[in-house]
């Protein structure tokens, strides 16, 4: 935060954070406001920085895989998968095809639960709490599937260097297919409640716009970039796991909704359509699942010995629910990697907030901030300093209330 928060004249400085108005993630925002309108935006992340890369550079890769599981509470597989893929390339470990398919299935289940979680949060920010409850009720099915396949709801512990730690048995297949059928039956309903609602459309259409050019220049990734029309999806662009065998296309906002505008509404569309896409990917994986081993080497001492000898550098990247997740690993013949850089998807999307929030109203901040699905960490109060007076504190509840009131005002107009 800059020191000039007590500035007297307009624009007013409105700090929001370090706990967050939208998600339970800490990031410090400082807004310069003229009346209700955001003039400029500054943000400071880092409140949840745990030095994981530093810890990793003092551990062996098998230990790090379990550390990567814990980088994010929602994306339980993308970090371990990125890291494992980087190490496998350095040590020239061939992953059995069946393991690649199991990784892909879990990868897509994770995308479904993450997008549904986000849909609930977005509904809450807009003031539709029954929709929040419905979205999260529906999400439970994918959580149950993940629990069935890995044993855990979060921190799956499924990825190991050289494969996966648990197979998908024949008994589990019908359970997955039931889950997919459940979601197929719900998709139309979800599209109706989110996209045909005139209030959601007025709150989200043309708000928080990120242009195609800005998305490129600011290195945006994932649904945030795709909603702006940038066709960028690692699953389509760069083959990994089973995606090299599959037909995956980046989901862009379709013409029937007015083409890519790069606003909040487009980001809702992209995520909803991606849930449908994930169902089909999982189905394709189940249909074409190869047989065979699931691990390159079961004996950990042997695996560790191979990894200790490995020298070189590699990049492991996957398409996380929020966009590209990338790990750079360099190993030099020691137990621990010489370098390890984790690049999560939100890292690339942070800069997009600046053009999105400029010119928007205070009450629109929660949904716009949430629209990139930021992944950092927790919320509590907002302080608003106006005319150099003593800070008035806006709690998260009050800010959300402002947002809800705006929704109610719009509803009355219809």
């Amino acid at each position, binding site marked *: 935060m800059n020191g000039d928060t007590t500035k007297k004249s307009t624009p007013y400085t409105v700090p929001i954070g370090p706990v967050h108005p939208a998600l339970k993630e800490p990031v410090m925002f400082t807004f310069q406001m003229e009346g209700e309108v955001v003039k400029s935006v500054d943000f400071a992340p880092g409140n949840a920085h745990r030095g994981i890369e530093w810890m990793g550079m003092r551990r062996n890769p098998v230990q790090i895989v379990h550390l990567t599981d814990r980088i994010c509470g929602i994306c339980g597989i993308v970090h371990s998968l990125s890291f494992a893929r980087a190490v496998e*390339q350095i040590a020239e470990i061939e992953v059995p095809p069946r393991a690649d*398919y199991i990784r892909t299935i879990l990868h897509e289940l994770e995308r479904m639960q993450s997008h549904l979680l986000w849909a609930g949060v977005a509904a809450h920010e807009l003031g539709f709490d029954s929709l929040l409850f419905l979205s999260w009720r529906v999400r439970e099915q994918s959580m149950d599937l993940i629990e069935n396949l890995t044993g855990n709801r979060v921190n799956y512990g499924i990825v190991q260097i050289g494969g996966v730690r648990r197979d998908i048995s024949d008994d589990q297949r019908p359970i997955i297919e039931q889950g997919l059928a459940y979601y197929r039956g719900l998709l139309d309903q979800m599209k109706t409640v989110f996209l045909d609602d005139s209030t959601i459309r007025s709150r989200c259409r043309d708000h928080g716009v990120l242009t195609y050019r800005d998305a*490129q220049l600011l290195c945006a990734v994932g649904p945030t970039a795709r909603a702006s029309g940038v*066709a960028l999806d690692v699953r389509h*662009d760069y*083959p990994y796991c089973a995606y*090299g065998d599959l037909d995956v296309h980046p989901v862009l906002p379709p013409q029937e909704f007015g083409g890519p505008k790069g606003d909040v509404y487009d980001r809702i569309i992209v995520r909803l359509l991606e849930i449908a896409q994930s169902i089909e990917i999982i189905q394709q994986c189940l249909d074409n699942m190869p047989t065979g081993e699931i691990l390159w080497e079961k004996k950990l001492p042997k695996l560790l010995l191979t990894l200790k000898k490995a020298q070189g550098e590699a990049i492991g990247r996957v398409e996380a629910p929020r966009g590209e997740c990338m790990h750079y690993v360099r190993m030099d013949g020691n137990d621990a990697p010489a370098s390890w850089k984790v*690049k999560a998807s939100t890292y690339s999307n942070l*800069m997009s907030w600046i053009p999105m929030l400029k010119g928007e109203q205070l009450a629109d901040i929660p949904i716009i901030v949430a629209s990139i699905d930021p992944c950092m960490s927790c919320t509590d109060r907002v302080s608003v300093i106006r005319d150099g007076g003593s800070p008035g504190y806006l709690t998260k509840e009050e800010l959300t209330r402002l947002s809800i009131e705006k929704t109610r005002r719009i509803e009355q107009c219809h």
Partner: protein
Amino acid sequence: MNETPHRTPQEIVDLYKAEFGAGIHDARITERGEGVQKTKGYNIWIRLDRNLLKPAIKKLMDIRFPHLAVIAGNDLGTEIELLYIFSVFYGTKFGEYMVTIGIRLPKTDLTVPTITDLIPGALISEREKQEFFGITVTGIPDGRRLFLPDDFPQGVYPWRKDETGIKPEMVRELWAIDRPKDRPVPPVPEKPVPEKKPVEEVPAAEGKEKKTGGAPE
């Protein structure tokens, strides 16, 4: 926009070699195929003179506007290596390559020009490299710290492996930290009532195959 021709990895390496000649120290292509069909993905690694960094990035932008993933770094002892990790040709079915442009900075002169004039989104990564490696990015539009808190000591750079790295006394081993002494001792729960619980659980587990519950996140 950006309707430049798609190229093979070798063509990209050749373009660089033709343009920068002896300025390139190392250029190589790695490939990796996964799944059943082993469709190949390609990574291009180019290491060159430090003063060629910006021309090399401009060259990449001429080939096709790239996506900057991140700037990674290595502490090599007397030098810091910075790796600008890009991807080009996104949007092409399995036609995207990672292009990593590496430069080395001796620890006696850790300055590098900003690339935010070419790619504004590089700002986050440049700020992070400043605080974690102790390099100076000249011309950076915003040189404040990013992730490290304001009270983090100056002159300590977490990813360095020399004396400016994290000092041993800054590391607190979690296992060695006892409970705080200045707080009341928490009430220790009574020992759970034995025997009754397992009897209750067994029929429940039999009756319902799928267990609900589990800890909420």
